[in-house]
């Protein structure tokens, strides 16, 4: 608080009212989504018809709840598989990148670092279509040359994983590099003096130091992968992840089952978000 500054009461109250309004504005859409998950009506809109759990546990059409809605359950599983692979791949590559950028000096390092940051400023849709065009070209060339089929390079889950990996790795690299920069190299030297091999020293001393950052990067990767829409949209095949399924439903107009899914997603992200916050706290 800045002391000793003359401010009229009216001004202070207007300011506070504005800030309050702002937070109401931030919360309103989310609260609305949650509340309408319990509306006993087939449309997620007014009028309010009473409270129900049907959109979670219902089994009779049209009241089919999330836990009995096959397509949605299947797309949650698809999203989880994609998120798992994206997270594993981006943490591994993020860690090797961190070691490279923090530990080594080499020609072209600045240029490579900028290239590494580029995925952040490329719109997701463009990232998606460029990977789509490239992989299809490669697949066509290979198929013409060998006469075999290369389905992995056609729109589908492999491309979705690669597309999300292509920009989430940048975040993982930044998070893990920041931690590695704080590492005291003399600890590793001590391990070497005590007879450890270089790889042994890294594994026994440096990697454990990096674990919290790697875990935080993994959590962020899972969240970003689950939420990603733009890149996924261009690369998706027949197995749609959750955001795509929800988008298709939204366009057509859907029952409040979508509200129920959204509510579950919020709870899950909140839990994961808190976990990553706690991890970061322990890091400090």
């Amino acid at each position, binding site marked *: 608080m*800045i*002391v*000793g500054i*003359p401010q009229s009461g009216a001004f202070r109250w207007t*300011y506070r009212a504005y*800030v309050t309004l*702002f*937070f109401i*504005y*931030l*919360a*309103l*859409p*989310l609260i*609305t*989504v949650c509340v309408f998950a319990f509306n006993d009506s087939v449309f997620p*809109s*007014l009028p309010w018809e009473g409270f129900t759990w049907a959109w979670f546990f219902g089994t009779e059409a049209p009241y089919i709840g999330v836990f009995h809605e096959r397509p949605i359950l299947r797309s949650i599983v698809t999203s989880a598989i994609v998120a798992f692979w994206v997270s594993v791949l981006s943490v591994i590559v993020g860690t090797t*990148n961190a*070691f*490279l950028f923090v530990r*080594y000096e080499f020609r072209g390092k600045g240029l490579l670092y*900028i*290239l*590494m940051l580029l995925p*952040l*400023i*490329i*719109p*997701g*849709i*463009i990232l998606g*279509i*460029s*990977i*789509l*065009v*490239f*992989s299809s*070209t490669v697949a066509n060339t290979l198929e013409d040359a060998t006469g075999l089929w290369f389905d992995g390079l056609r729109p589908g889950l492999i491309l979705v994983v*690669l597309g999300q*990996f*292509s920009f989430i790795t940048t975040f993982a690299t*930044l998070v893990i590099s920041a931690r590695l920069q704080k590492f005291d190299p003399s600890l590793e030297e001590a391990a*070497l003096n005590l007879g450890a091999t*270089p790889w042994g020293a890294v594994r026994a001393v440096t990697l454990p130091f990096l674990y919290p950052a790697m875990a935080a990067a993994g959590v962020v990767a899972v969240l970003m992968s*689950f*939420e990603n829409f*733009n890149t996924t*949209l261009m690369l998706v095949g027949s197995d749609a992840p959750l*955001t795509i399924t*929800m*988008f298709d439903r*939204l*366009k057509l107009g859907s029952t409040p089952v979508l509200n129920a899914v*959204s509510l579950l*997603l919020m709870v899950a*992200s*909140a839990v994961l*978000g808190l976990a990553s916050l706690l991890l970061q706290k322990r890091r400090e």
Partner: protein
Amino acid sequence: MGTDRTRLGFWLLIAPLAVWLLALIVLPHVGMFLVSLRERVGVREYETSLANYAVFFNEPLYWNTFARTAYMSISATALTLLIGFPIAYYIAKLTRGRTKTTLFLMCLIPFWVSELVRTFGWMILLRETGIFSGLLQYLGLVGGPVEMLYNDAAIMTGLVYTSMLFMVVPLVTTLDSLDDSLIEAGYDLGASGFAILREIVIPHAMPGIVSGCIVVFMLSLGNYLTPILLGGKDSLWFTGLIYDQFITRFNWELGSAFGFLLLGLSSLIVFLGLKLSGQSLGKTMAQT
């Protein structure tokens, strides 16, 4: 440590980076550029030409949509800054300790939820049978249901909402580093509140303003969900055109050209923003 061994380590570490950047970033973009220069002259027959770019400039719908997307994104950025700045100032300068952390975290919470869910929330609020329409009828301000979805104002509301975090966070960070005594000195010397804002606060917050604006502009320009869902069929957003060319019409040549134009505009803005503020890409991104 032997030199050979460090050199081996270096190659092992640079390999994943090289594969990632080459196979997923550099080559796909080069490939997309080459495809955009291809003109289909027969079945599986192509010639190199600028025909796809010519189509863009000769078809008013295309470049109008492009200009509209750019214009709407600039407006959304300006609006986000106007709404977000007082909030950031309040959090950074007028609160302390626990309140400050709480307010700051409250700004972040909506963004742990996917953009789809946020947009869905706005759809429920704005639609004809939605909350706002119902509230207005309940208050007797309007006679019948009002449709507030599927217009530019709805798109704008959604874009500003979705981008807010990326404006508030860098603003809070830069305003936090402004020394309170500078503001007090301004008052002691008899400056008005407005003069202090213009001469002290805004110049100090400039790096944050620039990086916030760059990110918000980029996100709005590349947004697909919000314009399509809140703007309806006639939203006329450039990413929508790209999607149509690729998925609906299967005209990858034209779609690639569109993609390149969008990428060009987005990069140009980032470049200009960084030049104007004299910041580096790494620093700007580290703030968000």
